[in-house]
């Protein structure tokens, strides 16, 4: 019996991939979450800005409505403020330096067999595994 979590994962994944396909074939754009957010304050006033802003409206609004309809959702995130701030800074700075995150490099890049997307994805997953191993099993802070 396949765990339900994996089936929901596949189903949700298909939705994410179709969203990226609509963004690409519809408007000629790569659906990368970090790029869309960082692009918000770099493109103010342009028609591109309007597209990015509406994308974010959908990205925040649709899960908000769905979570409300199903009686709430949980991120189960840590409440350690030091971890939250450090992780946020690393994710923000790193995704701009490396030009992408899980959606841009992972979904859009790997599906195109882009060497950059594959190299970036392998790197962030590998570093994530090491940081998790050390942070959780050696230092016990995660």
């Amino acid at each position, binding site marked *: 019996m396949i765990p339900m979590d994996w089936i929901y994962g596949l189903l949700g994944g298909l939705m994410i991939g179709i969203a990226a*396909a609509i963004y690409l074939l519809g408007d*000629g754009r790569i659906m990368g979450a970090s790029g869309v957010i960082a692009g918000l304050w770099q493109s103010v006033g342009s028609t591109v800005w309007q597209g990015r802003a509406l994308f974010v409206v*959908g990205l925040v609004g649709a899960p908000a409505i769905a979570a409300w309809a199903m009686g709430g959702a949980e991120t189960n995130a840590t*409440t350690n403020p030091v971890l939250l701030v450090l992780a946020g800074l*690393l994710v923000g700075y790193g995704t701009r330096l490396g030009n992408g995150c899980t959606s841009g490099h992972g979904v859009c890049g790997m599906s*195109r067999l882009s060497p950059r997307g594959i190299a970036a994805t392998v790197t962030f997953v590998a570093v994530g595994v090491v940081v998790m191993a050390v942070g959780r099993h050696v230092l016990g802070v995660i």
Partner: protein
Amino acid sequence: MRAAISLLSGALFGLGLLVSGMTDTAKVQGFLDLFGAWDPTLAFVMGGAILPMAVAWVVAGRRRLSLTGEPLPARPAAIINGRLLGGAALFGAGWALVGLCPGPAIASLSFGGWPGLVFFASMVLGMIGFQWRDARKGLAA
């Protein structure tokens, strides 16, 4: 047209993140916890997302323009440098610490409580910090 496409794409992306469980940091951290109670869900999400997008790239290769008349993005030069790998490494470290990457961080803003807001604000600060440093380097060069 662009407005409808952007809104629909963002909404579907957000719903997909919620349905797949990727807005739950425990599931994301579980995937990275290879030496603990490993949770392979993220691999199914990635596989599911890559399938339709791979088809989309094939279609894109046969067309010149998007529905809105924008040129479809060309294949970037395959330059794998320290900037790409260093950025990915910093991102991977932050991703493991809390279990949020940019997509789920935004998608969970409405229900993630104060930890989600603190993470999001720090992420934006990190992005602005990079742009500030990048611009200064550009001026110096």
